């Protein structure tokens, strides 16, 4: 297809399916914890606002979760179908980590999800809250294992290669490999941040439409607290992650900074914009700030980082893509910090809920967290190239022997299907968001517990006849 090789098609297939997939778990991680907080607040304060918000976000969570499950199933099989040499070589490490993810996380989520979504009238409030907590815990445990696996591919250790395959010799070293703590913190916080922006955008949008109900205000308020705390925290974690990458994968840092070579005794500038040219080994049209690169990457004046020319051409990742995907992530991160600080300022001034310009900004930032997650993953994964296991196995040696025809056919199938299925699902989620949290006084019985929260509102997501 389009003159692409089987290797390129397999990489596109993996990149496409995993990019679609990661959107859903990111929201799942964030919303599950948010729902646990909402239910906890409701049980504690018995304020119906929290119940209404729980009810509202749990229907959106259900749609999102289903899409995460089915798109994740594809990932579990793709290592074997498309990357069979990688699997037979390194499955002895990534297989056990994935198996632990299934055993400790997927079953936990799936086992308690039914009770969480459909069990309101079947179990007591305490047990229901427990189910929500288990689902939330499952999402975080899942992130831990899969990021251990991914981080091991980025910074492998604790193994030997014996007889042409990886043999793990120290599991603690395998799991707690050098980049794992940073990647885990960065991704978990990213999921919370992306969810906060999504929830915040929903609240802001409803306020712009003049629906200033207590639930809508609470939603925006909680999301903006989260953003102002977590966005700066993410900047600090990202900085630490970058230094860790510099120590273990310097070629990735050189590529994403468009930094080709050092001049002895000179500091590294920060290139704000430019066009890294892989063939010419230079960054064209560079707009740079002197010294700042040294300051950010080495935390001191005059510090140097390896230039991309110090690596053999065959070992260099694509700087043109990395330079821009990295800047997209960082740029969005700066906007998130700005949103959080602005929200705090307006809250202090008592104008959080009625500053149209701010509400518009918050609405537009709704997908920013997810976009930043995608940009960040593109950066770290393309930055690992040309290796699938960094420094150990090259991507071109990992791919199955499928023909370009077979790969093109399945890739076309996945692309068409993903856009129809997940496009529809995302549109349903947005329609549910647009319907807004409902308040139903009759939903609570005399114990202050909902009778039928999930069946009280009609399911069909028609805006005009939603039946509220």
């Amino acid at each position: 297809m389009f003159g692409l090789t089987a290797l390129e098609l397999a990489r596109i297939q993996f990149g496409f399916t995993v990019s679609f997939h990661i959107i859903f778990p990111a929201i799942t991680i964030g919303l599950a914890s948010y729902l646990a907080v909402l239910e906890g607040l409701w049980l504690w304060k018995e304020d119906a606002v929290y119940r209404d918000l729980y009810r509202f976000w749990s229907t959106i969570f259900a749609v999102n979760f289903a899409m995460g499950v089915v798109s994740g199933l594809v990932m579990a099989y793709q290592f074997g179908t498309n990357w069979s040499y990688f699997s037979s070589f390194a499955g002895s490490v990534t297989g056990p980590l994935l198996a632990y993810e299934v055993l400790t996380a997927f079953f936990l989520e799936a086992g308690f999800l039914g009770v969480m979504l459909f069990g309101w009238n079947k179990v007591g409030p305490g047990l229901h809250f427990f189910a929500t907590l288990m689902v939330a815990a499952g999402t975080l445990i899942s992130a831990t294992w899969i990021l251990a696996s991914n981080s091991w591919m980025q910074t492998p250790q604790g193994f030997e290669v014996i007889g042409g395959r990886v043999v793990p010799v120290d599991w603690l070293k395998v799991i707690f490999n050098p980049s794992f703590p940073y990647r885990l913190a960065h991704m978990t916080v990213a999921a919370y941040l992306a969810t906060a922006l999504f929830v915040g955008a929903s609240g802001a949008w409803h306020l712009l439409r003049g629906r200033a109900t207590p639930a809508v205000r609470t939603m925006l308020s909680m999301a903006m607290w989260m953003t102002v705390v977590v966005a700066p925290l993410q900047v600090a974690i990202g900085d630490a992650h970058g230094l860790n990458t510099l120590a273990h994968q310097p070629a990735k840092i050189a590529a994403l900074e468009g930094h080709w070579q050092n001049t002895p005794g000179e500091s590294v500038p920060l290139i704000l914009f430019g066009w890294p040219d892989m063939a010419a080994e230079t960054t064209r049209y560079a707009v740079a700030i002197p010294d700042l690169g040294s300051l950010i990457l080495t935390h001191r004046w005059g510090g140097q980082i390896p230039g991309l020319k110090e690596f053999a051409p065959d070992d260099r990742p694509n700087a043109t893509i990395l330079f821009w995907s990295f800047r997209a992530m960082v740029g969005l991160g700066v906007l998130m910090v700005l949103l959080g600080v602005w929200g705090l300022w307006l809250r202090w001034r008592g104008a959080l809920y009625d500053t149209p310009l701010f509400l518009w900004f918050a609405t537009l930032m709704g997908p920013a967290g997810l976009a930043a997650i995608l940009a960040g993953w593109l950066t770290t994964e393309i930055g690992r190239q040309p290796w699938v296991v960094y420094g150990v196995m090259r991507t071109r040696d990992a791919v199955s022997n499928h023909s370009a025809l077979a790969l093109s056919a399945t890739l076309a199938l996945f692309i068409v299907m993903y856009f129809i299925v997940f496009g529809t699902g995302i549109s349903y989620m947005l329609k549910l968001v647009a319907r807004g949290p409902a308040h139903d006084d009759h939903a609570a019985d005399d114990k202050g517990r909902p009778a039928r929260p999930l069946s009280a509102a009609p399911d069909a997501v028609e805006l005009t006849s939603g039946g509220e």
Partner: protein
Amino acid sequence: MGIDLPLLWAIIIGFGLMMYVIMDGFDLGIGILFPFVTARADRDTMVNTVAPVWDGNETWLVLGGAALMAAFPLAYAVILSALYLPLAAMLAGLIWRGVAFEFRFKADEAHKWFWDQAFAWGSYIAAFSQGVALGAFIDGFKVTGGAYDGGALDWLTPFSLFTGAGLVIAYALLGATWLVMKTDGALQRRMRALARPVTLVLLVVIAIVSLWTPLTHPQVASRWFSFPEIVLFAPVPVLVGLSTIGLVVALGRDTHAAPFVLALLLLFLGYSGLAISLWPHIIPPAISIWDAAAPPQSMGFTLVGALFIIPFILVYTAWSYYVFRGKVTAGEGYH
């Protein structure tokens, strides 16, 4: 160490796959039965009987894939790349039907029929692809130098197409008997009436596979028809016959759970028959579980977790089923 790790792992993976076949079997079966039930309310009831548990059922399939990669990476690599196209079709089917659980309740009136279709077609495609994969697995794979060495369409044989159709029938039976247990009234009567012919068709399918397999696979023939194996394994076909009779009888009476239990027994017997035929090969026809085993460090590390955690999984899965026990009636939508 005296522990035979590959053996233990073969048992765990065999158990996991059996759990998958049984549990996702009945909820895929519900999609397979959709064309036979057209009333919207009945379809909602059918879906609601599995809505709280389907996700957990499907997790056994993920466990199968992950455990295979952990314990037998070579088998994971060879089998999955050999079955690339049928597995891609299976995943596509599972995607359509998986999202349909939610979407058919969330769609506008005008689009609900589309997601009903997606639910039914997705279930058929997933079940059929799994059956095809099973047939191709029995047929075996061409392996050279530790990698799959056959063509992209080697899995496509009359035998694999037959096992594909056979698995659709088997899941339909599980689905119908599940609904006999979980529903009442007209829908239950309809399922009772449907389950009988499906049982008989399944018996014919089992008989044909039981003849076809040894006829075309000499290894399988010698496993079943040499002494003393023929005596040892004789209970399997005998029990298949007895449980079929029991099933037909139970369907004719006012029973609720009995048909489902007997259908599970029938599936379990068929599954054991296959295990007997193929043992100890994890990549038929020649690579055994010991040849394809991961390093002991991988198997041991994962085994500790599996043996400790799987009992908990079984307990809370059982609890979830217990919470949603009893009949699901029309209008009692969880949604």
